[in-house]
């Protein structure tokens, strides 16, 4: 797994690549939180374009970042979610949190 970051004004884009499961989610989480805590961006964009597999740990990852961002007034958006990932997000009702 790897995460690379891009910053555009008040937006932090995290480009995720690899597979997300309970094991790797911890590494993704630490990496994203470290950067987001430092920059406190108005918008955190999670780019799933490089994710080849994700179980529900990925949903936990999104929900956790959403809560963290909301705590300091920021928001989270998920982009480039493959159809499989969107299916799971809808199962979780994450579409209703307006992150997709």
């Amino acid at each position, binding site marked *: 797994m790897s995460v690379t970051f891009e910053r555009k004004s008040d937006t932090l884009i995290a480009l995720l690549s690899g*597979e997300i*499961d*309970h*094991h790797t*989610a911890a590494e993704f*989480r630490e990496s994203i939180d470290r950067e987001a805590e430092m920059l406190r961006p108005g918008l955190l964009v999670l780019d799933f374009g490089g994710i080849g*597999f*994700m*179980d*529900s*740990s990925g*949903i*936990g*990852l999104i*929900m*956790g970042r959403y*809560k963290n961002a909301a705590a300091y007034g920021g928001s989270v958006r998920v982009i480039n979610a493959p159809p*499989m990932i969107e299916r*799971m997000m809808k*199962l*979780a*009702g994450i579409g209703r949190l307006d992150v997709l």
Partner: protein
Amino acid sequence: MKSKAKNEMKLVIPSNSANESFARTAVAAFMAQLDPTIEEMTDVKTAISEAVTNCIVHAYRDTIGTIWIEARIYDDGRICISVKDKGCGIPDVAKAREPLFTTGGSERAGLGFAVMESFTDKLRVRSAVGKGTTVTMEKRIAQRYRHDG
């Protein structure tokens, strides 16, 4: 009538989280002989990943135990997979199967059983507190017919 499996596999692993990837990949490699679509294969991999994660996060929380995975394939294209642990067991299986219910902390979505149910055709959960849990899943892989000539 109970049909006979045409092939089967067994995998026994310790509940290290690094084995989540190994477990789903091993079952996916086994089911490849059914010639599944990528989507069917991903469905099964996701369901296995959820079942194994439950063993690690819940059944053997803060400990390392053994996980038994068995898969059988049948002539009609079905694959049946069981994931068994001898961990703490689930006091209320119906509650545990509700979407968004979790005892796994704020980073867990509580979707494990919902995903297993949605991504396979049949899900059965048998659990006894203090004895362990066995999750059995079944999925039918669409048979594609060969056009020769």
